[in-house]
Structures are given as C-alpha cells and as structure tokens.
C-alpha cells in the first residue's frame, strides 16, 4: 500500500480516457477489500465465527447496495460481473417461461446480443429492435413487436460505445401494461445516473463493479421480488439457489464500497465530467470532416464518440497511445472478427466513417489539463493519418 500514491502519480503521466472499458480501483475500495481478504476470509456458508463474520460482511454490503439502487436487499444477487448477470437474466427467464419470444435492442452489449443469438439457435423467437441514427431505440417499432408470445424485453439503460441514453421508464411502463418482463443492462449508467430500481419498474437489471472504481470479477443481478428466474450456475445453492459458488466477499465489499463512494458526490462529479465532455466535443468538432456519433444531449456525461473521415481507428488509437493517450475505437480492424462495431452499424454509419471512430470515456481522475492536452494532440494525429491515407477528404 505504501507505493500506492507513487504508482498513481506514475500512471497519471498517461492520460486514461477509456473509463467505459474499465476504471482504476479507488484506493479506499482496495483498503476495504484488503481488510476482508486478510481478516474476514471465511466462507459465508461455514457455521464457525469466521464464516459468520464473512456472511455478515456480505449482507451489510447487500443492504448498502440495495439502499443506493432503490431495491430490497433480497432482490440483489451477486455475480461475477456484467456478462454473467446478462446471461443469467436472459437465459434464466427464457428457459423458464413458456412464452418463447425475446426482444432485445440491436445496440446491446455482446453479452446480450450473443445470448439472444444462442437462444435463437435453440429455437426461441428473437427480435432485434432497431435504433434511430442517434442511437435511441424506436419505441413504436418495439411496441409493435410485443405479442402474446413475448416473454422478455431487454434494453440497456445507456450504450457503452456511443453513450446514448434509452427511454427506460417508458419501455418499463409499456412492458407493465402488456404484461411482459423487462430487463435492463444498467452497467454503464450505474454510479453515473441516479438509478431507482423499484421506481423504474424493472424486473431485472445487471450491474458490474469495475465500471465505477470497484474490482473486476464482481457484479450483481437485480431480480424484482416475485419475478421467477432459473439459475444459470448450479451447485451449492448460494444466493438463494439462484447463483451457486462460494461468494466473492472481498469483491462484494469492494463493489458496495465503490458504489457508496461514487454516490457521495455523484451529481457534482458527473456535472464536472459533462463539462469536460462538452469541451472535448466542441474541440473535436473543429476538425474538418469529423462527426459526433450518438445523441447530443441524451448522452452519458462521460462519453465522447467521434468519427474522422479517411482515418482508421486502430492506427488512430495507436498513435494516440504513443502520445500517452489511452482511448478505444469501433473500427473493424481492431475487432476480433474484422467487422465494424454492431452499434455503429445500427446507427447507419457508413463504413469509412465507422472505421474512423474514436471513443473517449472520462472518469473521476481526468483533469481539464488532460483534456486540453488531448485536444492539442488529436488534430495532429488525425492530420498525420490523413496525409498517409488513400481516402482523401
């Protein structure tokens, strides 16, 4: 621990603008986790005092999380992260229900899209609901797809690539009227936007710890009281038989602590990040033949996604990395299947524009000075690549 400050200083020489991918664990979270790792390392299923202390630790965290997210403690099930929560929610409902139609948005995280495709192969009826060119779901078209055979709808609270915020409240109301279950992947919104799960009227929601300065490998699934779900992982019957496996108590404590810390000054901090975001957008708009992807206002306060015509994203982020700036892209060249991001495709972005996409996602450690430096470097790097490019602007 004595090296923590030193290490942090060293890292700050690099500008980390990929907070939508993951975040640096907060020092105070790490301290809490270290305490649990070393002192309360018991198995929560054990009857001795070490086990019972660990159990108490976990239940305190559950209560804390439930309070912040507007849920009941018994509605919170701990998992290994966003991907597991999304899999558990979709498969857990679709495998149980007699109605066999699933509707998901076309811009969901791969852990939803791939799960939906898997279920389609297994014989379920799956519909991918379209979004408009700003990345907002076409709610009328979604509504038309709901029939008496529809079991579940899953629409993310906000998108991880282009930051577009979805009309979750309206969809939830629609689902309630039509007696359809509703799941939302709230991974990107948690700790950024005020979430009140029971007021939102969701049946299920997925959260991941490492997106808000908590540890990797821990997340949760919210299941509204009365919503029946089948377990994804079978075993010792932990988490009321919904999620077996020895509980990751240091991770759970870390998740709760991280959520508590971000909630303390969430509004103020997100206002600060929004100002930095808008400064980035304004600055990048000055680059010729560039455009903002996603919605101008219905947008996560920490998300910037820009396309620069005639440059390729992987080359762009590599040159930015040479300048100390860490960012990401939706370019085909950077993906594992050489396809452009399905999100950029869903908003109808032309291939050349999609190849030149750059995502900058802010976090609590970013300063205005860093943003100024980034705004100095990006135009130079874009210019350099455009000079090399065979696609002329």
């Amino acid at each position, binding site marked *: 621990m004595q090296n923590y400050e030193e290490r942090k200083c060293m890292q700050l020489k690099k500008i980390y603008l990929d907070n939508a991918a993951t975040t640096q664990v907060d020092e105070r979270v790490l301290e809490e986790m270290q305490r649990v790792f070393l002192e309360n390392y018991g198995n929560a299923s054990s009857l001795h005092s070490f086990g019972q202390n660990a159990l108490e630790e976990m239940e305190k965290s559950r209560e804390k999380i439930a309070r912040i997210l507007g849920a009941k403690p018994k509605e919170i099930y701990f998992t290994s992260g966003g991907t597991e929560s999304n899999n558990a929610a979709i498969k857990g409902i679709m495998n149980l229900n007699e109605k066999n139609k699933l509707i998901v948005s076309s811009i969901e995280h791969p852990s939803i899209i791939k799960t939906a495709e898997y279920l389609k192969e297994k014989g379920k009826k799956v519909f991918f609901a379209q979004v408009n060119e700003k990345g907002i779901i076409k709610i009328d078209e979604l509504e038309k797809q709901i029939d008496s055979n529809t079991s579940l709808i899953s629409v993310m609270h906000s998108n991880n690539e282009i930051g577009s915020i979805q009309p979750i409240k309206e969809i939830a109301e629609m689902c309630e009227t039509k007696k359809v279950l509703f799941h939302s992947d709230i991974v990107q919104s948690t700790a950024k936007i005020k979430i009140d799960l029971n007021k939102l009227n969701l049946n299920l929601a997925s959260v991941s710890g490492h997106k808000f300065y908590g540890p990797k490998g821990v997340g949760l699934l919210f299941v509204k009281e009365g919503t029946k779900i089948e377990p994804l992982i079978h075993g010792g019957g932990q988490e009321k038989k919904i999620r077996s496996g020895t509980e990751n108590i240091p991770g759970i404590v870390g998740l709760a602590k991280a959520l508590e810390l971000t909630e303390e000054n969430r509004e103020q901090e997100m206002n600060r990040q929004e100002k930095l975001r808008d400064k980035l957008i304004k600055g990048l708009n000055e680059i010729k033949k560039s455009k903002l992807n996603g919605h101008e206002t219905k947008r996560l306060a920490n998300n910037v996604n820009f396309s620069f015509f005639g440059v390729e994203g*992987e*080359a762009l982020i590599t040159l930015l990395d040479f300048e100390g700036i860490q960012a990401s892209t939706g370019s085909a060249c950077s993906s594992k299947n*050489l396809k452009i991001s399905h999100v950029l495709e869903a908003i109808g972005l032309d*291939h050349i524009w999609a190849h030149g996409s750059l995502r900058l996602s802010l976090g609590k450690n970013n300063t205005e000075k860093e943003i100024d430096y980034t705004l100095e470097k990006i135009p130079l790097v874009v210019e350099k690549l455009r000079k*090399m*490019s065979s696609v002329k602007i």
Partner: protein
Amino acid sequence: MYSKKVMEEFKNPKNIGKIEDPDAVGEVGNPICGDMMKVYLKIKDNKIIDVKVETFGCVSAIATSSKATEMVKGKTLEDAMKLTEKEVADELDGLPPIKFHCSVLAVKGIKKAIENYREKQKK
C-alpha cells in the same frame, strides 16, 4: 499483439505518399474490409526506381505497405512480381493471424501496379 518490428515500421513508415507523375498506379482493397492502398511506381529500364504508397488502414496495413514497398524498391519488375506476402510478414517478425490479409493487400497493390504498367506498355 504486434511485434516490435511492426510497431517500429508503423512509427516510422517509409515510402508514404504519392508520386506526382507515376508510371503506374495500383489500387486495392475496399472500405468494407477496411484497408485501402494506392501504390505509385516510377519505373526506368525495367526497374522500380521509386515507389510510394497511400494507405487507409490499421497499424499492420501501414506497416506492411511500408515494408513491402521497401522490399521492391530498386528491384526489376520480374523480381518484384516474385515478392510474397509471407516474405513481407517475415520481415516484420510475423503478423497476428487475423492481420495476415494486410500483407496480402500490400503485395497485391504492388503487383497490380506492375500489371497496369505492363498493360500500358502493350498498347
């Protein structure tokens, strides 16, 4: 992950740009796969005396177009036609399997330019 040589080549790419009055041009790739290259050749006495390339593509597309053009500069057209994508990739200490098509494209661009030159000579 890219090799050190790929990163070096990407950092300081050679022969990037265009030749104003080229003897031949070869254009390959398409925007859907992502990479597009335009190779310019200056040819004298059956030899490539100058070569330049413009690349719209990723790190390995830029690195391989740089390396491939370096490898054919000064060579006869016949020797240049013998260049293989494997030779280019090997010169760069290999490419990730998913990126091998970049070296294919770079070699294809050069060969297309030579073919275009030969077609022109026939007329």
